[in-house]
């Protein structure tokens, strides 16, 4: 078991180093630091200003270790990223780490309820559809799912803001307030849109899981014992389907910290999604680089944790 955990951790660490290398290729060689400086300062900036900018942002070194072993950007990039020293934003010179800390709260206040509400909506619906499998209700349900999946998220957002925010005036179109009494009013619309735009794909996924479980031997046994169809659905199918459902949820948890780019930017929630949106608009390469790294790190962490816990529970996983 110890060997398995070590191997898995080592592989995870290797993938982190790989991600960092890809990021270096993208953000330092495909776009050279001089290009970033030009974009930050404008095309007409004098060469001296570019030099000063490069020095201030720590870009004034050769790229590769074989050019200068002690002072090069590759090692510097690895050292800074691995010690979470993310440096300054390329756009407005503010420390990136401060913005991440400030943005995590608002992001989580959106994504955590979104995950919970999404599951509360999708699982009962898909149980219902799976219960009526191969009837018109099932076919209707699948058709509605495909219909819901075919609408662009942009249209859901614009439609909800227009209909509920502007015409009916039930909830504010956008905005945010950390006050717990006001917060639900601001989150209502993004949560509604998030749940609706995700529900088609979710119901289809859970339906497949439930159908797979309802073809198993233990379901047949339960039916032979005389268990009712409803009891089979809730006690035998749902219980066993919890394993793949939990896997999906556990893998989604790391991404909760990243927020939602679309929802946050449209609804004015000052989380990490909005931060990335601003970074894209302002050609802020260092923020973008950091966010891709943080996202990957969270994902790898989640995956390694899942694999190790599987290995703890299921000895078959360890053998491979």
């Amino acid at each position, binding site marked *: 078991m110890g060997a398995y955990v070590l191997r898995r951790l080592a592989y995870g660490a290797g*993938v982190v180093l790989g991600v960092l290398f890809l990021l270096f290729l993208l953000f330092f060689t495909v776009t050279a630091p001089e290009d970033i400086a030009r974009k930050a300062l404008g095309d007409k900036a004098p060469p001296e200003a570019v030099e000063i900018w490069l020095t201030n942002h720590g870009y004034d070194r050769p790229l590769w270790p074989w050019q200068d072993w002690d002072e090069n950007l590759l090692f510097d990039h690895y050292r800074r990223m691995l010690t979470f020293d993310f440096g300054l934003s390329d756009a407005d010179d503010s420390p990136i780490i401060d913005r991440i800390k400030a943005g995590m709260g608002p992001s989580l206040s959106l994504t955590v309820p979104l995950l919970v509400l999404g599951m509360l909506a999708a699982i009962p619906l898909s149980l219902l559809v799976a219960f009526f499998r191969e009837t018109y209700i099932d076919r209707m349900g699948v058709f509605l799912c495909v219909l819901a999946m075919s609408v*662009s998220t*942009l249209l859901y957002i614009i439609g909800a803001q227009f209909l509920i925010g*502007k015409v009916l005036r039930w909830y504010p179109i956008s905005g945010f307030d950390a006050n717990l009494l006001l917060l639900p009013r601001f989150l209502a619309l993004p949560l509604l849109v998030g749940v609706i735009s995700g529900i088609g794909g979710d119901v289809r996924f859970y339906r497949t899981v439930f159908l797979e479980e309802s073809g198993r031997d233990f379901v047949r046994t339960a039916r032979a014992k005389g268990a009712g169809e409803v009891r089979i659905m809730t006690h035998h199918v749902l219980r066993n389907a919890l394993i793949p459902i939990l896997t999906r949820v556990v893998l989604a948890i790391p991404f909760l910290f990243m927020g939602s780019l679309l929802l946050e930017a449209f609804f004015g929630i000052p989380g990490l999604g909005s931060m990335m949106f601003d970074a*894209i608009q302002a050609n802020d390469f260092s923020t973008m680089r950091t966010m891709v790294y943080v996202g990957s790190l969270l994902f790898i962490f989640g995956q390694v944790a899942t694999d190790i816990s599987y290995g703890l529970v299921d000895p078959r996983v360890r053998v491979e």
Partner: protein
Amino acid sequence: MMGLEPHIWSNVMTVLLVSGAIFVTRVVRGQRLWREAAQALWQRRRFALVVVAVYVLIGLADSVAWKGGVPEGAMGVLPNAPLSLLDRAFLDSREASYSAPFADVEFYGGAPLRNPGKHPFGTDILGRDVLYLALKGARVALLIGGLTSLIAIPLALLFGVGAGYFGGRFDDFVFFLISTLASMPSLLLLIALIMVMGRGTVSVCVALAVTGWVGFCRLSRAETLKLRELDYVQAARALGVSETRIIFRHILPNLAHLIVITFVLTFSGLVLSEAVLSWLGIGVDGSWGQMIDGARDELSREPIVWWNIGAAGTVLFVLILAVNAVGDAVRDVLDPRTLRGQQ
């Protein structure tokens, strides 16, 4: 591109695509497996297939362009610009400003229109016919889906089949590369790639391909691992058939159904991603995503200008719905796993 003018390049590509489609049709007709699959597909999703075909025809009509033949004084046309079939159908349809669907007068001010009652979806702020813009988006959408798949699928096959068939160091390398790419959040990686490569159709497609090839690579690697152990592949190897010939003769044909399924199922996702990219300001010019993004603020005008976003949203929705419906049927028809489930 390559010294050719863009419209000539587009014409050549159109001819290549049409001849490719004819070739594929002949192959499908010649082989019983594919012929029966095509027939089953036609029986199940006749309507959706027709809808997709209409979009393809519109896209082709916008891809064949030539110069000249423009009457003097046509509004909004440069004298020597190449115009496609679609452009020519809507020649001289331009107005001065907004007009509602089928209106005779302008929306604000009420000045009479040049073409009264001829704009079924109205015109946008620059006076361009909205139906024309919506139809023009078909080519862009098909280009995004098609070009991306044309880059991503061969890439995935090269690495996936190679890794699965040869194994060893190469397999380790490919597996590591896949895990690395898969662990980067795809929307962020997509945005990062476009930020770094610059904007434009080709770089958007390349970025979508780089983020999209991983899934199919994993699938084709796993499938190749299974196929290479099969008796007839072992027999071919024992008879001394070369590795390349085994791959092309015995492995790739057995992956063909997966290629088709992947192509159709990822298509709609690609077009929808482009809409998000357009909203971020890094999409492809002339796409429906850009129309939706541009029309976003017009809903807050008074009175409301709704036909712009309505038209773009509808054409996008109908294409995605049709492709999704076809995709599900393609999977049901071609995937042996679902076939087994039905028996």
